[in-house]
């Protein structure tokens, strides 16, 4: 119907502008500013490193590089939880852009997820720093897999946001529900513990959760050079892509009437 809007040529700039603004505002009015994006994971890691390397015997937790695994896993999970939260709330928090002008709703959703991605990238700088400090070099394949997994997390975030952002406008409970689910997910993913401490059948169940899958194999591949089977990986990617495609349909269905419900 609104063919003409497709002529709008600046969507990419719009997405980027919105993401940049969010990023700018996040550290607005703080003395250290952008440094916080680095400082926060740094401090977190130092605490974790102290708690798990000094207070617990590293042998109990399975690996000498446990703290590296832990911080990587936590950053990934953090990325997922921040991204999904921001994505879900994006349309509501930018209500003015929905009700007072026409911009495609997806630009708003994508912009908020990009913002989470930017913070993740900043965090990665810190993670790389720790790998250097601990003098540990993961294999090339492990790094490639890590980048792929990071991208998969991003795709999951976008898919989740496409599903929930238009619905959240109508059902504010989604936020509470998602907070609880995230907490369950945090413990149901092998972040603090290695998957191997669990019985085999429980492991299978947990790996059905894509975040658990990603985190488990990231930890394994980075430190232990142990990779998922090809069919596992392909199956996983197929599932993620399917979810993403489904989310596009949901977005199409629910986003049309968003302006009436805000």
């Amino acid at each position, binding site marked *: 119907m609104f063919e003409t809007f497709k002529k709008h040529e*600046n969507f990419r700039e*719009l997405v980027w*502008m919105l993401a940049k603004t969010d990023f700018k505002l996040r550290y*607005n009015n703080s003395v250290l500013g952008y440094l916080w994006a680095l400082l926060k994971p740094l401090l977190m890691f130092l605490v974790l490193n102290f708690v798990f390397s000094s207070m617990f015997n590293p042998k109990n937790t399975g690996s000498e590089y446990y703290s590296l695994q832990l911080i990587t896993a936590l950053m990934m999970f953090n990325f997922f939880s921040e991204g999904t939260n921001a994505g879900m709330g994006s349309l509501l928090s930018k209500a*003015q852009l929905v009700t007072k*002008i026409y911009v495609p709703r997806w630009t708003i959703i994508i912009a908020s997820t990009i913002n989470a991605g930017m913070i993740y990238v900043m965090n990665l700088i810190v993670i790389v720093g720790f790998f250097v400090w601990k003098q540990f070099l993961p294999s090339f394949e492990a790094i490639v897999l890590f980048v792929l997994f990071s991208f998969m997390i991003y795709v999951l975030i976008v898919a989740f946001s496409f599903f929930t952002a238009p619905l959240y406008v109508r059902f504010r409970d989604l936020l509470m*529900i998602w907070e609880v689910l995230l907490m369950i997910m945090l413990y149901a993913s092998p972040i603090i513990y290695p998957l191997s401490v669990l019985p085999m059948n429980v492991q299978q169940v947990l790996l059905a959760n894509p975040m658990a899958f990603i985190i488990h194999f990231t930890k394994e591949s980075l430190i232990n050079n142990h990779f998922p089977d090809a069919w596992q990986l392909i199956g996983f990617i197929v599932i993620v892509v399917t979810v993403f495609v489904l989310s596009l349909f949901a977005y199409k269905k629910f986003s049309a009437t968003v*302006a009436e419900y805000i």
Partner: protein
Amino acid sequence: MNKNQVKKSQKNSENIAISVKNVSKTFRIPHEKVDSLRSAAVSAFKKQSYEEFKALDNVSFEVKKGEFFGIIGRNGSGKSTLLKILAGIYKPNRGKVKIDGMISPFLELGIGFNPELSGRDNVYLNATVLGMTKKQIDEKFDNIVKFSELERFIDQKLKNYSSGMQVRLAFSVSIHANRDILLMDEVLAVGDSNFQSKCLTEFNKYRDMGRTVVIVTHDISVVQRYCDRAMLLQNGEMIKIGNADDVVDTYNHKNMDDVEKILNNQTIKSIDSNGLQNRNQKIVTITDIHFLDKNGSDKSVFATGEYMKISIGYEILGECNELNFGIGLHSAFGGQIFGYNTQMDEYRVDFEKKHGEVIIEFEFMPILQGEYYVNIACWGNVEQNHYDFLPRCKTLMFFAIGNKRRYRGFFDISHKWNQL
């Protein structure tokens, strides 16, 4: 269809900026707002209770390129919904909207403005939201700032701007977005008068450049001054479309009818409470008052220049040797418009009969638009010793039609301009 006709219809469609066909929009208003999953789950089992509110009902119209088009209507007539549909914010339930050109909606100024960012950042943000590319903004940035007259403050945070300055900046960005079609929702009334006139010049420039402007308003004077054509919406239906002056007149008549209904209820009350309360002490009491037009129907709302007949009914209860009536018209803003009485005009009221009616006629009531009230009194031979006095017994509304709306003051005195 032969070749010629095809050519003609193509040419026609090229001239059309906005074409709306049979557009309807219905909002479902649930009786209890379902905004949590629990209530959604509960109401899924119950029979859903909601009201259907038809905001727009089968509206069709076309706006030609280069036209200044007005949409008028009272609050809740659906005009803002229509504008939002044109802007692509709402999706119509039925019907088709076709828009040829890039739209710049002025539903609100400064969309995306953030108080924590500098004026400069906000210009870029807002302009990007309005559909400009970075390159375009870079090119126009100096002009935008210059137009807003905020050169000195552009690197300050927006929160340190006064609200007027914010509006100026926002307006300046919007005007430079430079689209083919402008949709405006009564944002003309912003800024100080100096800036306002600048804006209006800018709108006229838009029109001169052959751009299309659609404005939604309930202010008739805007439509009269700027619009080529207009359309009147009432309860979601299009009542009239056409020449701006015609549409405004229709709108005025509709308004007069509505005001009439409200005023009619009021007058009866005030007469009851003032007139008939202490009936037994009175020598003469005024029983009823009617304001009649040429057709003899009782009205409270008159057009400027209309015929008016005021009839005052009275009843004599005691002894009286002389009877006089007076009527005064006052502006609601203060100041008497006129005061006439039978004594001044040396008209002798016949007081033989117990009941009677005194009538004063005005062939031509040259009162300009506004709200007025009426005082009526009757007395014997000394005006100060009222037999009966009804202060503010009636509120009258006058509506001016056509260009008389623009006249100032209270009276429409016939006049003529000349040049030697």
